[in-house]
């Protein structure tokens, strides 16, 4: 009996794999196994010897079973390790990268400006590209035959309709829609068209964003404060701006807005033509005629307006050397903008 236990334990111990172990298990613990054979001998014993014998055989059975269990776990663990080692892959093979596209740089810049102004409580207003001469010119304080119309070479469709030359057309429509109610606080983005031959710095089609605020005692200082924040948002915290008096029909007083050069920090470089400043916006206080035509009383309210070219900002921001890249849509060009803030 002792032999059965010792031999069994030894047989378990020397097993190299789960199959061998199962065979040993069958030899000892199956219905016809050695342990059962020991049990079978009980019928030959006297009644008083039976309990002690039975207990002894059971003891052997339990010992073997727990030995089997331990060995099985150990072998499983080893087999698992072997399996794991087989799972080695070449970590350096190319990935299966999820496909992702890119927004157009003009959209990226436009959205950035829209988000900035929405954060300050501005609504985004749009209007038709095929526009009435009336909203594009008359309402913008540019009457028939005014020399200022020389400044914008217009694509006319007929005497009445044209392709809008500036998003001021959206402003004049928006002002009219407000019917004299304040506050007006909007930005007006959109495509505009001018009869310019396309070259590195001109495009017959481009995107403008104009802004318009009308309320009580809105001042040129408010315009400056607003545009200072915009300049910092677009070109970095250390940017400053300067106003230069200028002329636009829509505004009086009018200013051109320069931003200190983000490339050289105002020291002078090729981007800013050594001046330290980059012209980026036209702006001013809404002309009283414009307010009056749209049903506002310029004695009671005032407003500021500004306009910028999205292409110009994109060119400056990303260092693009030719405006035509933006409309060629070369995918190698567009892929530059896949990673955007």
């Amino acid at each position, binding site marked *: 009996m002792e032999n059965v236990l010792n031999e069994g334990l030894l047989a378990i111990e020397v097993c190299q794999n789960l199959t061998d172990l199962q065979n040993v298990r069958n030899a000892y613990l199956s219905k016809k196994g050695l342990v059962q054979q020991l049990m079978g001998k009980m019928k030959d014993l006297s009644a008083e010897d039976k309990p002690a014998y039975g207990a002894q055989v059971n003891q052997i059975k339990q010992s073997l079973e727990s030995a089997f269990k331990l060995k099985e776990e150990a072998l499983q663990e080893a087999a698992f390790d072997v399996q794991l080692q087989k799972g080695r892959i070449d970590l350096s093979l190319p990935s299966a990268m999820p496909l992702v596209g890119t927004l157009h740089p003009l959209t990226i810049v436009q959205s950035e400006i829209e988000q900035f102004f929405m954060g300050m409580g501005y609504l985004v207003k749009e209007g038709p590209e095929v526009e009435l001469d009336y909203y594009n010119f008359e309402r913008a304080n540019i009457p028939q035959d005014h020399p200022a119309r020389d400044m914008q070479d217009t694509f006319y469709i007929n005497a009445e309709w044209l392709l809008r030359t500036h998003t001021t057309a959206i402003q004049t429509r928006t002002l009219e829609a407000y019917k004299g109610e304040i506050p007006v606080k909007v930005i007006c983005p959109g495509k505009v068209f001018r009869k310019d031959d396309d070259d590195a710095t001109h495009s017959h089609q481009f995107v403008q964003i104009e802004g318009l605020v009308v*309320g009580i005692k809105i001042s*040129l200082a408010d315009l400056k404060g607003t545009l200072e924040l915009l300049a910092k948002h677009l070109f970095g915290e250390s940017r400053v701006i300067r*106003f230069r008096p200028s002329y636009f029909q829509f505004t009086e007083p009018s200013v051109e807005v320069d931003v200190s050069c983000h490339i050289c920090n105002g020291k002078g470089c090729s981007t800013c033509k050594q001046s330290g400043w980059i012209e980026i916006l036209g702006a001013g206080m809404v002309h009283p005629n414009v307010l009056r035509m749209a049903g506002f009383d310029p004695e009671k309210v005032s407003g500021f307006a500004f306009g910028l070219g999205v292409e110009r900002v994109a060119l400056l921001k990303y260092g693009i050397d030719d405006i035509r890249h933006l409309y060629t849509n070369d995918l190698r060009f567009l892929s530059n903008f896949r990673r955007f803030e």
Partner: protein
Amino acid sequence: MKVSMQWLGRYVDLTDIKAETLADKLTLAGLEVEGVDPIAQGSNLVIGEVVFCEAHPQSDHLSITKVNVGDEILDIVCGAPNVALGQKVIVAKVGAVLPEITIKASNIKGQASNGMICSLLELGVNPKALSDDQKNGIEVLDASLEVGQEALHALGLDDVILDIKQTPNRSDFNALWSVAYEVGALLDREVKLPWQKDFAQKGSKSDLVIASETAKCPLIYGKKIGQVSIKASPIWMRRDLEAVGMKSINNVVDISNYVMLETGQPLHFYDGAKLPKMEIIVKDGLNESITTLDGSDLPLDVQDIVITSNNQAIGLAGIMGGEDSKIDEQTTSLVIEAAQFSPSQIRHTSRRVNLLTEASQRFVKGLDPQSIIKALDRATELLVEHADAQLIEETVCCGEVSKDLLKVSVHLQHINDLLGTKVSLETAMDIFTRLQFTPVEKDSWIECTIPSTRLDISVAEDLIEEVGRFIGYADLKGSLPLMPTTQGSYDARQAMRQRLRQHSVGFGLNEVITYSLVHEDKTKMGVYPLENPASLLSPLSEERRFIRNNLLASMLETVAYNQAHKIKDFGIFEVSNLNTIAVNQERYAFVLSGQVERSIWQKQVYPYDYYAAKGIVERLLSELGVNLSRVRFENNEASTFFHPLRSAIVKIDNKIFGVIGEIHPKLAKAQDVSNVVMGELIIEQLLSMKLAKVRFTPVNKMPAVVRDIALVVDEAIQVSEIEKVIKAVSKDRIQSVQIFDVYQGDKVETGKKSIALKIVYQANDHTLSEEEITQLYTNTIEACKKGLNAQLRIA
């Protein structure tokens, strides 16, 4: 306009101010100075006299000269054809640095050369101001110039030109005198103009007849000068004109130009003897042609303003005079014409005949009504002094110069409210005084009398701008508008556009923005092109005459461009509105080219095909809240833009929403593209459509049972029909029907196809029993047999 510092300095003292400093001041006051350019450049330049000149023995065009430069006599080999003994010339001594070259001692074909005799061109003078002789040869100087002195200063070439960008409102800056006033006001300095008031008033009785028969010429003055002598202009006048890029012709012509530049008033001088009759009549409505000064023959339009004499056209008003009556060397008497013409008419005529002259630009911008008088006074004075003018007749006029000056008032509070400043009354009064607005103040109301030159000032805000630009905006402290808080947001259209963009980028598509202007051909193809596309009256080219009425036609250009540049696998999209006069419609379009190579070595390469396009549409629509049960893809067999059998009309709620599919092979060939699948969607419709909102649906916890079946059906039967038949078996027990294989080939009958489906049976309130499942499965097969004439395929 170009302003010479020296010329300007004749009216306002600029001796202690550098051109750059003045330029900065002007720029920050609203006169943007775009250039500060010396008219000539060069060091080590002196006046010399040619004391010896002979042909170079080894050359057919060089000369050997000796030039006295005061302290020495230099040997110089000169290549100019016009060099001659006795000339006073400009000499660049050894070491001189000129715009293009540095002068070194040299030996030219055996002859020593220690310097160079210069042309003005070599000193960087604007070629526009130079005659052909001056451009081709050395500059021959006035014999009275003293040898040895520094040349640029002696010749008045040590001048700097300010190139001022004129804003359209400041028509007064067409007159140098007005620039002088502005500079005087900015520097707070006295301005002295050489204007002898009423000089032109004197004169004997005149037989000249002046008349205007058109409202487009409200004012015209004429003056006959019986005797003048034509000769060269005085040196200072030539210098001034050349400095600003104007060629000197002769004293009389130069005077008319000089006075125009000074006063802004274009003058026209006729040869008195060549006028058909001693009359000048301004007319319109003529229908003939005129030969202008430059010799071109211009047909007249009835709208044009024409100067006539004895019914003959002698000038195209405000633009150019006629050839027949022009001043030449033989001229002995003059008739001066000074007028005001309708700016818009001059603009139209000038554009039509494509002639932009110094005169026309001034008329177009608008003239100080009093400039006629200033110009006549000044011209008469200069003619007397420099053209020996005699037999001066009185001025004859038609119309009257208004002497009334506009008065505009502004309140100090208004100034500070609009600018956001704290300007004092004294400062404001000082600024207006310097501007010669003769301000009068009462209770902080300031009344200004506006000089006739300042056509740009008519309302209080104009005066506020004057204060603003004079105090300068550098110290203006920025603030933010003080007003009720408002909520900033996109509207529904803008929000939809942004979501479409973000999703598209997530699908790997790249956004493009293409031109809205297209060739007419592009308006006649594409997806549901809008009716009546708008076309431009005068386009840049036929390629860009029409405003596009669909997106895909123009996007194909982008596809062709990229494919031509060996970029084969890509997806692009564009969101844009389409415009005609009647319609403004938002659209979305995409083009897929080639395939998606996600991981080639793992064979993860997916074709961009009809199903990829369909997937994009379905994904976008479900993301935007359109349940796909509302969407149908219907056959598009009539298409010539898309492949007729591999494209579909997309409908939502049975309404046309767009088209997707493969490009028509013929079109692909014509457009030079290949492997293109595309789609265009009228997303405008989504804005008025009921869209699903996000709602919580409880998760079905009951077990689901999956059964696979394979059906053999007629090949014409669309899978959507099979799905429909199966789903109809039980609305609440069949959770989904998924197609996992489509087979056509030798294992099924010709004309048939095998479709393998995975059907998920599930109830939401109990576990389906074995009997229920069997019943559902049997019903499914029965329905397919009955409804689709399908056979169960035994694998």
